């Protein structure tokens, strides 16, 4: 197939799941979250975001050049992935790791699958996962305490001694505990996430199912293993669960399209997250949960009748 044929093929397939207005609004919202992160931590966080975006743009540019395609058509989509990636990272991560993570994610998660709107796995999560496997200690130990600026471990689901008081809940909402950049100020995640749902940029079904189902699973499993699964309500505010439910899981491209698929998708994410949090010693289950469900998502969409091929 020559280049002209390829291009005409792409024009025919273009109107698929990609909405440029939504991508632009999403970019703005994610930038707001990044600015909140920069306010809580230092301007280094902002630098991480800029480096991530630059890496993404450069890789897409080179890829478009090599394939001799027109560059700039999907320019907004190239901001969302690196911004989500940065918001999933701990605030003290070295810059070269940001470059490696975004580079791997954008190239192997998005470009190879045919660019924006075609990816199976969420590219930001592919990069995150690669980084987590390659530099496990750096990724899990680059958390910074917002108050003192010291390197600390982030709060884990097992550190539940602080739980149970409203005061601590407010501290958590206002970002006084170490966490990843995006999830530190939980209140910000809530407000921006609510606007996102209100504007119908993200489907409300997925975040709702994820949060409700993970609370339910925590309660059920807590009956049998009280040592591993603690307070169901507080567990929703820890780690990246809230941020991922609102901003990562709702990605319209890598998730299923049908309502039934979306509910199953959310329940699957919740179950895997809760199980990983309780039983495995992986640092954060929700990332694995979403990317596993991304792989299974094409299966969830199909009605059994449609499978006759």
């Amino acid at each position, binding site marked *: 197939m020559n280049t002209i044929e390829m291009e005409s093929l792409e024009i025919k*397939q273009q109107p698929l799941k990609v909405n440029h207005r939504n991508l632009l609004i999403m970019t703005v919202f994610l930038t707001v979250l990044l600015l909140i992160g920069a306010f809580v931590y230092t301007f280094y966080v902002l630098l991480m975001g800029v480096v991530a975006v630059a890496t993404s743009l450069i890789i897409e540019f080179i890829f478009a050049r090599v394939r001799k395609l027109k560059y700039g058509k999907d320019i907004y989509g190239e901001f969302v992935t690196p911004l989500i990636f940065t918001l999933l990272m701990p605030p003290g991560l070295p810059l070269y790791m940001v470059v490696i993570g975004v580079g791997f994610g954008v190239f192997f998660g998005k*470009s190879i*699958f045919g660019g924006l709107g*075609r990816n199976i796995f969420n590219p930001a999560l592919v990069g995150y996962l690669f980084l987590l*496997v390659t530099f496990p200690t750096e990724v899990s130990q680059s958390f910074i305490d917002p108050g003192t600026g010291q390197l600390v471990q982030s709060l884990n689901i097992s550190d539940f001694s602080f739980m149970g008081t409203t005061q601590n809940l407010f501290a958590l909402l206002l970002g006084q505990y170490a966490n990843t950049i995006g999830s530190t100020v939980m209140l910000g995640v809530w407000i921006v996430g609510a606007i996102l749902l209100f504007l119908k940029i993200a489907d409300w079904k997925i975040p709702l199912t994820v949060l409700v189902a993970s609370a339910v699973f925590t309660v059920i499993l807590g009956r049998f293993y009280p040592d591993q699964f603690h307070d169901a309500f507080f567990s929703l505010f820890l780690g990246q669960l809230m941020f991922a439910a609102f901003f990562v899981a709702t990605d319209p491209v890598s998730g299923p399209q049908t309502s039934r698929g979306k509910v199953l998708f959310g329940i699957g994410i919740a179950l895997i997250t809760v199980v990983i949090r309780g039983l495995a010693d992986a640092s954060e289950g929700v990332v*694995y949960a979403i990317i*596993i469900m991304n792989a299974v998502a094409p*299966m969830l969409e199909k009605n059994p009748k449609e499978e006759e091929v």
Partner: protein
Amino acid sequence: MIEFTTFAQLIVATLFLNNVLLFSFLGLESVTTIEEKPKNALKLSLALLLVLPIVSVISFWIYHNLLLSVSDTGEVLADLTYLQTFVFVITITVVVVLFNVLIKKFFPKLYAFIGQYAIQLVSNTVVLGVLLINISSVDTLANSFYFSVFAAFGYGLVLMILTFIEKHLQESPIPKGFKGLPLQLIILSIIALILYGLNV
């Protein structure tokens, strides 16, 4: 009897953490023969699920009773294990061909569904690979049976996921150089990365 926790560990380890397709690279050649169709993947997996436990148990018995004879005190009386590959390949061939003949005679409908893929198992590396893993890391006959069942399940699961993804990607403008096998391997490697990350 196996305890429940060890049994659960065996299931999780065989299905996910030591998945034969993702971490031992067995059976990769079948990825190309199923032609991106989930139904074909189902046929192949079903055939494997029916054949593998039989072959596995037979070859395990042969290895521990005919090839390697050990006295009660643990003394090795006779060691013919250098013949293992040869004997296993013959076992696989005999069992697969017999299996085909028998289901053709007694279950014609099943044969019509999986026959095309059942005969391919003679040359599928999953079968021989699982037998070799069996004798090196499994201790009892029952465990070799369970191991082969869940290995077949894990193989089928990954194959199904892969074919559904491929079907989903059918109309994507994938770069020419990455179409087909390269992209299949990249998808498999990302799935392997997920499971490897959980293992770390």
